[in-house]
C-alpha cells in the first residue's frame, strides 16, 4: 500500500514537472519576443543583429527613441500620427460605449414591436467582416470628401454590433426592480439611463472600452485606404513605413514599437481588474 502511494506520488510529481515544463516553454515563446522588443530598442543596430543575441544591452542607447520620434526623414510625423491614433481611438471608444449601452438597454429592457427583427439584424451585422464593406465604405467616404480627415477615420466605426450585443447580454441580468423603483420615484427614462444604467454597468463598459480601443489602435487597413497624407496617418502605418526601411535601423524600429505599445499597456493595466471579470462575462454568454 505504502509502496503504491509512493509510486503514485512519484508519478504525480513527474506530471507536475511536465506541466511546469510545458508552461515554461510556452512562457518563453510568449515573453521572449516582448523582452526582445524592449532590449533591442536600447541597442544600436549593430548589436541587435549580433550572433548570439545579447539579451542584456551593453548600455542604454536612448538615441533610438529620439530616432523613433524624429523619424528617418526628421519631420516628426511620429508625434502627429500618435495624436491621430489617440484621438481616433478615444473618440470611437466613447461613442461605441455610449451608443452600445443605449441600444443594448433598449433591446434588453423594453418590449416593442420589431424588437426581435432588430436583434436579428444586429447579430447578422456581427457576422460581416470589415473587408466586405471596406470598398463600398471607401467609395462613400471619398464621395463625401472625407479622405484624409478625422471624419473619414472615425465615422464608419461609431458603434459596432458586438458592443450592442455585449451590453444587451449584460443588461438582461440587470434587476427590473431597480428600474421600476426609479420610475416610481418619478425619474424619466433618460434620467434612468443616465443615472442608473450607466453607473452600474462599469464592468461591461470597461471590457467594451478596452476591446474597442484595442481594435482601433490596431486598425491598419482602413487608415491605409483613407489616409494617404502623412499628416493624417496613424501609428500602425507609421510602424509599417518604418519596417519597410528596417535595414536602416532595427533598434529604432523597436523603439517605435515600444512607444506605440505604451497607450495600450497603460489602458490595459489600468482596467485589467474589470477585464478579467469581463472575459468571464464574455464566455458566459457563449454563442
Amino acid at each position, binding site marked *: 500500500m505504502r509502496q503504491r502511494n509512493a509510486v503514485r506520488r512519484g508519478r504525480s510529481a513527474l506530471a507536475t514537472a511536465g506541466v511546469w515544463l510545458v508552461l515554461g516553454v510556452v512562457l518563453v515563446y510568449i515573453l521572449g519576443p516582448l523582452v526582445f522588443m524592449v532590449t533591442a530598442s536600447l541597442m544600436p543596430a549593430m548589436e541587435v543583429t549580433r550572433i548570439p543575441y545579447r539579451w542584456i544591452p551593453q548600455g542604454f542607447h536612448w538615441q533610438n527613441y529620439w530616432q523613433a520620434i524624429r523619424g528617418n526623414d526628421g519631420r516628426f510625423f511620429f508625434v502627429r500620427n500618435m495624436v491621430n491614433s489617440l484621438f481616433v481611438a478615444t473618440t470611437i471608444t466613447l461613442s461605441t460605449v455610449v451608443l452600445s449601452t443605449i441600444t443594448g438597454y*433598449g433591446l434588453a429592457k423594453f418590449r416593442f414591436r420589431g424588437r426581435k427583427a432588430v436583434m436579428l439584424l444586429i447579430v447578422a451585422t456581427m457576422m460581416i467582416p470589415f473587408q466586405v464593406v471596406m470598398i463600398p465604405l471607401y467609395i462613400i467616404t471619398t464621395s463625401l470628401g472625407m479622405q484624409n480627415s478625422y471624419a473619414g477615420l472615425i465615422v464608419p466605426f461609431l458603434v459596432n454590433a458586438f458592443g450592442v450585443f455585449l451590453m444587451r447580454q449584460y443588461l438582461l441580468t440587470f434587476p427590473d426592480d431597480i428600474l421600476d423603483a426609479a420610475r416610481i420615484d418619478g425619474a424619466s427614462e433618460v434620467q434612468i439611463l443616465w443615472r442608473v444604467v450607466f453607473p452600474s454597468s462599469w464592468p461591461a463598459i470597461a471590457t467594451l472600452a478596452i476591446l474597442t480601443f484595442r481594435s482601433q489602435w490596431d486598425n491598419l*487597413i482602413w487608415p491605409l485606404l483613407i489616409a494617404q497624407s502623412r499628416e493624417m496617418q496613424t501609428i500602425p502605418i507609421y510602424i509599417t513605413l518604418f519596417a519597410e526601411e*528596417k535595414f536602416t535601423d532595427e533598434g529604432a524600429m523597436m523603439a517605435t514599437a515600444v512607444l506605440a505599445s505604451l497607450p495600450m499597456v497603460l489602458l490595459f493595466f489600468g482596467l485589467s481588474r474589470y477585464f478579467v471579470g469581463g472575459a468571464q462575462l464574455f464566455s458566459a454568454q457563449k454563442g
Partner: protein
Amino acid sequence: MRRRRARRGICERRGRWGWAFVLPSLVFFGLFSIYPVLNALYLSFFQKHLLSSAAPRFIGFGNYQYLFQSPTFWNSLKVTGIFTGGTFAMLVGLSLVLALFISSRKRFQRFLQLAFFSPAVVSTVVAAAIWLLIFDPRGIANQLVNTFAGTPGVDHRWLVAPGMLQFATMLVYVWKYVGYFTIIFIAGISSIPRSLIEAARVDGASVWQTFWKVTFPLLKPTTLLVSVVAMIQCLRTFSTQYLFSQAGSPRGPIDVITLNVYHTAVRTFQIGRASALSIILFAIMLFLSWLQFRVARSEEVSYL
C-alpha cells in the same frame, strides 16, 4: 377595463422609448453595414475602375468567372486555407492545454494569465514588426533552431522560403492571440461545477478519463465560442501578411484573401473584382460559422 387600457398605454409609451434608444444605432448599421454589404454584392456584378469616372459596366458573373479562372485567386484560397487551418489548430489546441494546466495550478495563476495575455496588448503591427526582426537571417529564430539542431550558421529562410514564410506568419498569429483564448477557456473551466470532477475522481477515473469524459464535454459551449471567434479572426488576418510583404517577403505564399482584396482594390483599382473577392470571403465565413453551430447543436450540453 379602463385599468387594462391604461396599462397598455404605459407599455406602448415604454415601447416607444425602446425604439428611441435603438434607433440611432439602427440607422448607423443601416448606413455603414447593411447598405455597404448590399453595395458590395451589387458592385461585384460590374466592371469598375476606381479612378475612372466611366459608369460601371454590368458584366453579370463576369468577375466571379474571371476569379475562378485566375491562378492568383486559387492561390489565395489555398494560402488562406493553410493559414487558417494551421493557425486555428495551433491556437485552439494550445490555448485549451494552457487553460487546463493553468487552472490546475494553485500558484502563479494570475501571473500566468497576465503573461500569456500580454502579447494581445501590443498591436498586430507591432507584433509583426518584432517577429520580422526575429526571423531576420541573423535573428533569434535562426540562432535558436541552429543551437538545438546543431547546425551553426545555417539560414532557414524564414521570410523567403514559401513553407517557412507561411509557418512564420502562423507563429506570429498564435503568439498574439493564444493568451486571449486561454483566458476564455479558463473562464469556461471555472464555470464547471467542481463536484462533478471530484465525483469522477472518487469513482476512480484517471486524469485523462476525467478530461475526456467530464471536462471536455462540459466545455463544449466555450470550445464552440472559441472556435468560431478564432476561425473568423484567422480568416480576417491582414496586418502580418501586409507588413511582411512590404518588408520584402514574396507575396505569393502569404497572399491571403484579405491581402488580395486590398491589392486588387488599391493597387490595380479593379473595384468590381475586389468586391467579388470579398463576397466570396464572406460566403466562406458564413458557411464555416454555420457549420460549427450545426455540429455543436447536434450535441447539446447538460450538467446531468
